[in-house]
């Protein structure tokens, strides 16, 4: 079995161990080729982004202008704030040098001399090993001006860690850039796209941590080697973060196209108490959930999941057994998107709060049947009308959970006995913001 991103080598995070295992050899090889050759190799390998959209990495790099008077930048997205996703921190902790090597090769390919690794604020613990690895790489002449001697190349680049302050929206690539610039992390209106107008208005490429970490092995072993792993249209391995009602939750690196049932049964040790699966989210909470009885034979890759009515996302698999209260689950997920909506554009700013209020009311036994259609209608009104993809991220769980588990929601609102009291704004004037009182655990 191939493990590309997290090889089974002890203490690989130590630079000596990394060097003993062909460390920085990929970069050495890359610098002997032309940047265009690197882009071509990555294109041919079929590597697709691991941050959620599964966009072709080589194609993204080729959008960077070849001739420009402006500096170019690489941003490495380690914000990893999608609920259910916890894979990048494994790389930070256990294989940071491969990430750094990937950054060097990527910077060389796109012509960037500065790279920022954006790491979410909550990852204090994982910032330290990355910074240690960067320092070691500097000391050994793998980063910075000494690269020229080390690798015998004219190219050099610098790598900085930028620590976020803890906001989901910073994982959106244009917000991430605003955050690095010191601005409020509002997503930018696109176009212009980052390759034209990114960090400080300069051409910028943004890649996920896992994507970049895949690059050195591709350079070392060739594009054909990589494209032969897993599903041909979405080759390589993925870091599947399995959580929820399984016996062995954790991160598993497996080839794309591995059966979802295999991941749960063979690797994650099966469902706790061997219960049936009611619902499963295959790629982080933003992705549409699937019914437990519809996953037989489902392969985990972008194409197969799209065909099944969901998406690969970040590969964060959340397993929910037959006893799970999905109304509560949906309310909790909606609370997350409500809390993390940046507030810039209207549909998401207002819609997330509205959906949460309705779901909370249903949870309190004050729901009506029309609430379900209203929720779907609100979600549809958000979907596609926002500045960034957080709109979809908030709308999809509501839309698809209600659509796919309608019975459970209908049962809940049918049990409701209390008649809701309409808008009480005047009598509420002296209270705190009413939504602050919403507690969902």
């Amino acid at each position: 079995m191939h493990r590309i991103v997290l090889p089974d080598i002890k203490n690989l995070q130590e630079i000596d161990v990394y060097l003993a295992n062909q460390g920085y050899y990929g970069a050495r090889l890359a610098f002997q080729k032309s940047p265009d050759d690197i882009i071509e190799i990555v294109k041919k390998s079929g590597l697709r982004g691991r941050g959620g959209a599964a966009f072709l990495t080589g194609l993204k790099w080729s959008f960077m202008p070849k001739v420009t008077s402006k500096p170019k930048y690489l941003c490495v997205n380690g914000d990893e704030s999608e609920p259910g996703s916890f894979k990048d921190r494994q790389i930070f902790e256990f294989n940071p040098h491969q990430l750094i090597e990937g950054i060097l090769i990527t910077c060389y390919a796109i012509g960037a001399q500065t790279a920022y690794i954006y790491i979410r604020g909550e990852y204090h613990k994982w910032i330290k090993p990355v910074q240690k690895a960067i320092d070691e790489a500097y000391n050994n002449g793998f980063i910075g001006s000494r690269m020229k001697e080390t690798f015998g190349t004219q190219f050099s680049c610098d790598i900085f860690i930028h620590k976020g302050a803890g906001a989901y929206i910073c994982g959106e690539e244009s917000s991430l850039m605003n955050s690095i610039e010191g601005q409020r992390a509002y997503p930018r209106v696109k176009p212009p796209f980052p390759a034209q107008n990114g960090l400080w208005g300069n051409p910028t490429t943004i890649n996920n941590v896992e994507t970049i970490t895949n690059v050195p092995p591709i350079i070392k072993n060739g594009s054909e080697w990589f494209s032969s792993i897993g599903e041909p249209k979405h080759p390589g391995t993925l870091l599947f973060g399995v959580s929820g009602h399984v016996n062995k939750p954790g991160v598993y690196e497996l080839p794309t196209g591995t059966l979802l049932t295999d991941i749960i049964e063979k690797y994650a040790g099966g469902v706790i108490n061997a219960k049936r699966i009611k619902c499963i989210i295959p790629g982080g909470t933003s992705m549409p959930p699937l019914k437990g009885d519809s996953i037989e034979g489902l392969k985990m890759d972008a194409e197969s999941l799209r065909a099944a009515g969901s998406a690969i996302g970040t590969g964060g698999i959340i397993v929910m057994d037959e006893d799970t209260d999905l109304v509560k689950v949906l309310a909790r997920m909606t609370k997350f998107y409500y809390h993390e909506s940046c507030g810039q554009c209207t549909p998401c700013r207002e819609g997330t709060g509205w959906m949460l209020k309705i779901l909370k009311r249903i949870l309190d036994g004050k729901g009506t049947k029309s609430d379900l259609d209203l929720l779907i209608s609100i979600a549809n009104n958000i979907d596609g009308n926002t500045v960034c993809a957080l709109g979809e991220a908030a709308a999809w769980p509501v839309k698809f959970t209600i659509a796919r588990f309608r019975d459970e929601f209908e049962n809940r609102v049918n049990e409701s006995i209390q008649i809701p009291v309409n808008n009480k704004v005047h009598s509420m004037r002296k209270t705190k913001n009413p939504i602050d009182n919403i507690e969902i655990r």
Partner: protein
Amino acid sequence: MPKFQIDGKEFEFKNGQTVLEVALENGIDIPHFCYHPLLSISGNCRMCLVEIEKMPKLMISCSTLAAEGMVVHTQSERAINARKAVMEFFLINHPLDCPICDEAGECKLQDYTYQHSIGESRFTETKNLKEKRVPLGPYVMFDGDRCIACSRCIRFCDEIAKSSQLTFVKRGDRVTIETFPGMQLDNSYSLNVTDICPVGALTNRDFRFKARVWDMSATKSVCIGCSRGCNIEVWVRSNEIMRLTPRFNPDVNQYWMCDEGRLKTWKHVNSDTRINGPQLRKNGTLAEVGWDEAYAFAISELKNFNKDEIGIILSSSASMEDNYMGIKFGKSVLGAKYFGYKSKVLKGSGDDILITDDKAPNTFGLELLLKSFSVRIENSFEQVMSLINEGKIKALLVIEDDILSGSEELNKTLDRLDLLIVTASNMNKTAEKAHIIFAASTYAEKNGTFVNVSGRIQRTKPAVVTSERERSLDGFEMSRLDKFGTEWDKWGKVNKIEARASWKILNGLGVVMGQKLKYNMAEEVFVDLSKTIDKLSGLDYRAIGETGVQLKLTNTN
């Protein structure tokens, strides 16, 4: 030129123009909140979503560049539904307080609710509450509940006023606007945010709760606060000015005006210090008299002096018409030789946005006039004052200027005079020393022209009625209420100030003293004066129009 389609019609566009810009240029109203023609594109309100063929998602027309062959639908079902959806989102947490909101009547959200919303609310939850009545600065009040987070005010401060004072804080539907810590919204242009705020979130602390928008008439005029001459509207209810707002003029002030001009150039019109009818000094104290008595007294007094003993102080704040008549009366009736005006330049008080150093609106025009009559300009005021000190000038006519203000040392100079005649709208230090005061109309009560710092001639129009104006042939800009006044609008019943335009006062004196021409309307004066100044030749009030005319300048200006 490249072409594209909006709603089945073909339009030409320039490269770089957005769909919304082309639509607005051609009279197609795509609703929008956050877009403002002079601010950067933020694209956050999502109101201007349109359907564009071959694009999977709806696109915001404010940021989408027009492209050759593009096909845009603003009235397709998807576009209409998106607008309804966005309106619904705007309204769920927006307070239904239009009846007490100052913005009502000129509120974009209110208008669009009628035009683009589904007309009922599906929202049965409790509305979010935010901070209300937050003074952001000396002039602007913020209501968080009403804010729709369009960021126009923030972008205005950053981009136009060039002082970043406002920012969003918090996230999601808790998002609200605050000043940066330790800061106030106190830049010189802060009140413009109340104009561009599409809802009633930002209101003018000077105006709020004073009048409903539809109860006022708005008269197009020009600000007299400095030599920029920002185009304004004068809002009047019950014959009182309630507020000024800037009026769009791409060649002068765009959409903006400064706070100083907005707040401090009209309070005197409604003030208690107004001079109500002519006054004569009898036994040392000033007493109100009728116009005829004042005229007769002034004429009999003026006859006691030789030509050389009379000085005339004109004003760079007075209109072309007033100054013209001042010169004409002085030259051809009194035969006076000494004319002067007091400069109102405050060095360093201007900025590079709108405010100029010269606090007078018509210095340029006055100097044009003086030149055309070959009157000395440099140090003209100082010359007149020193001639008074030397005892050579014994009678002084001051037209609409408080020459003592800021120059207390001139007190003794004026004491030497045997006769001081002033035309003034409000009691001031100079008027207090006068022997004869003629009550003058303010700029808000008369037709007049002013030439701004860059040589653009612009008009003021009467917005407030004086008792003279009631019978005037000179056009008023009528509003609906002026024509059909309701019983709640008191303008027909209020007290009107007994005042006349300075040109009319001087023309009245002149006619009795042998001046040939009698003028009935300000425009007659203007047409006459336009013949004496080459640069104005051929102009009349219609030609000047609402946004003025740039005079042809030569190096000798």
